[in-house]
């Protein structure tokens, strides 16, 4: 059966009054959960998990997807208004969303975030339905060594975003990885670096670490002086704040290239198991910054800086769903929970799942599409209430949010140990931020540390030959890309001043063509040849000191 026949077959199952109501409640719950720092999407989806027992598989999974989509979008509210990402998937949204809100335009920032989330979700839905099998094939090619290299690449990218402080950025990433080693080792589960403290053997849960590093350092940094503490979040003109839907829609639609690119990055990262929206939002932001003609404005309230992470994080859900549905591999914790919900109903996802259970599979695809429209519709109401936060004085927000964070963190595992983790990492984050260390690479290091070690142990379990890191095309691809990411801040700083910067882009193309050429099939080697030829041509022209006759615009933009 074709796509449309399958969708038509699934539609009656999904479009019932009960399922639609459940999805609306789920979307609203996700939006609220995502908006409260410390109360994450994962937690909201976990709270929903007991309900599918009494529902049909389609009802239960549609509700969970609604919570997931709502949560991904809800995170932008707290990220933009308070500077604390409601979820890890909106970390990069704070880079420009918060400065824009602080500069007196919170309504515009929120509107841009909502529209970007919506378009990201819709694009991902279409990709999910149309090219799902092809995208899932790429994820299938990945071996543990490729995952490990991907993680290294993700860390170098975040470190390189520290700009002049790349040294501290790299150190922060390594400190994050080191924090993740404390507790027990992933292979044998034996205590490691506990220094005699028994409770430390359980390690540090990611969410208390994230909230501690972000919430304390940011909130307490904002109340250092009496003047700052008494400042209203939306400035003294907070009463004039309103959400400029039309203006933000114009801004977003006018940057359709960024939306498309970021959404595709989101889908691609979502396809890769264990990558998830925590990585995609940062990668998309990085790419948007690199390709923008106004890269100087990033970090100060750039529109593209809000569009990129928000499009990507919603699109990642689509990519994660592809792998979960087609292969039974959870791309992130949310899809892992959904996998559990499917198993509740004796539905076992496998490569034949879509063909064996087309009604459930295509209902889920449709639910993801519909949930994005519900998110757009319901967020307008949720945002109106949430914007009131901007009228609150900073110290009031700080005190209340710190308490909410502690309650939310306790509720994750019902242990006070997590609250102590929150406190300790609050101090670490505050001190390190004060010393000029970027927090994001450290957080990413904590998240990815366990996964990286697990993948590395799988690599060594298969072979002791470390040449596998450069003999595997995808591994080499990510490692080389990681090296270029490390050089990128220097390239950006010296652009137009040093001669070597003229050869950065051509060399990137030529070097990256090598692993792409090593990949199987005809398409990718052909693409590699095109990349190498373009890079070679650019190199020759630049060596001669001339511009390419028909690509001056693109050359300037990449520069």
């Amino acid at each position: 059966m074709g796509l449309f026949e399958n969708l038509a077959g699934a539609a009656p199952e999904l479009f019932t009054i009960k399922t639609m109501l459940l999805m609306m409640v789920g979307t609203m719950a996700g939006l609220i959960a995502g908006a409260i720092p410390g109360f994450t999407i994962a937690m909201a989806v976990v709270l929903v998990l007991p309900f599918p027992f009494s529902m049909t598989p389609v009802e239960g999974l549609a509700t969970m997807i609604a919570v997931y989509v709502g949560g991904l979008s809800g995170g932008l509210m707290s990220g933009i208004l308070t500077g604390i990402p409601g979820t890890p998937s909106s970390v990069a949204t704070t880079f420009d969303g918060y400065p824009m809100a602080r500069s007196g335009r919170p309504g515009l920032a929120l509107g841009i975030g909502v529209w970007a989330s919506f378009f990201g979700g819709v694009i991902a839905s279409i990709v999910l339905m149309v090219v799902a099998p092809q995208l899932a094939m790429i994820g299938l090619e990945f071996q543990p060594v490729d995952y490990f290299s991907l993680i290294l690449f993700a860390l170098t990218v975040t470190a390189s975003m520290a700009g002049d402080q790349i040294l501290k950025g790299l150190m922060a990433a390594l400190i994050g990885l080191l924090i993740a080693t404390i507790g027990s080792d992933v292979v044998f589960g034996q205590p490691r670096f506990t220094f005699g403290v028994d409770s430390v053997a359980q390690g540090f849960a990611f969410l208390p670490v994230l909230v501690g590093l972000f919430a304390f350092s940011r909130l307490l940094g904002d109340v250092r002086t009496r003047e700052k503490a008494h400042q209203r979040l939306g400035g003294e003109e907070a009463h004039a704040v309103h959400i400029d839907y039309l203006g933000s829609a114009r801004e977003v639609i006018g940057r359709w290239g960024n939306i498309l690119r970021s959404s595709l990055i989101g889908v691609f990262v979502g396809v890769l198991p264990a990558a998830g929206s925590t990585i995609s939002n940062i990668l998309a932001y990085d790419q948007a910054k690199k390709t923008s003609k106004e890269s100087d404005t990033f970090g100060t309230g750039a529109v593209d800086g809000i569009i990129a992470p928000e499009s990507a994080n919603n699109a990642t859900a689509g990519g994660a769903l592809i792998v979960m549905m087609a292969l039974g591999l959870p791309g992130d914790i949310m899809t892992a929970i959904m996998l559990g919900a499917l198993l509740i109903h004796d539905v076992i996802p496998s490569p034949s799942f879509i063909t064996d259970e087309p009604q459930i599979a295509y209902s889920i695809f449709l639910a993801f599409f519909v949930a994005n429209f519900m998110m757009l519709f319901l967020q307008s109401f949720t945002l109106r209430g949430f914007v009131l936060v901007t009228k609150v004085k900073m110290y009031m927000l700080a005190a209340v949010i710190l308490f909410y964070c502690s309650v939310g963190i306790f509720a994750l595992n019902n242990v006070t140990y997590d609250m102590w983790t929150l406190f300790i990492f609050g101090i670490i984050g505050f001190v390190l931020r004060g010393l000029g260390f970027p927090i994001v690479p450290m957080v990413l290091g904590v998240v990815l540390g366990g996964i990286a070690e697990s993948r590395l142990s799988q690599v060594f379990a298969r072979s002791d030959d470390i040449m596998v890191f450069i003999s595997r095309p995808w591994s080499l691809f990510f490692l080389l890309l990681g090296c270029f990411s490390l050089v990128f801040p220097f390239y950006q700083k010296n652009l137009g001043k040093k001669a070597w910067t003229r050869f950065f882009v051509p060399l990137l193309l030529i070097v990256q063509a090598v692993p792409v050429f090593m990949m199987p099939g005809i398409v990718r080697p052909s693409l590699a040849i095109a990349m190498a030829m373009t890079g070679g041509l650019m190199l020759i022209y630049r060596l001669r000191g001339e511009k390419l006759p028909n690509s001056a615009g693109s050359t300037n933009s990449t520069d």
Partner: protein
Amino acid sequence: MSLNRDAFVAVFFLLLCAVMFVASFDLPPPMFGQMSPALWPRIILVPLALLSVLLLFQSQRNPADNEKTSFSDWIEFNKRPFVCFVLFFLFLVTMPVAGMLLGGLAYVFLTLSVLGGWKPRQLGLHAVISAVFVIGMWAVFTQALGVLLPEGEILRVY
């Protein structure tokens, strides 16, 4: 050698790397041809130590880039955040006695007052904010979401 902020940071991380590296020798040996539990931490510690050395050199080469603030000035600048940390610490320490509800009310009220001021009108506003938000959040978690928050010895509700 110029002792500036980054130099202190670099030395601290070098010492940390040394301590962790030594501690990694206490970890059990690998079994069944698996990866050693000490390998991954050492892979992290070596570049971290190298980057710390680089930071130390950088701090000596460009000492002017570092802030020259006395310790007392730094304490004064961060006085309010430190008080907030102390209050949060007391909130956690008194949790078994006060519980999440009473402890939360006291913590939020005191944090608001430390940051916002102690005038009677402000104290009234802070009391209202504490009551509304703490009791509201406590009710949402315990009644609506069914989360069992820590009860205290003073008031045994959760």
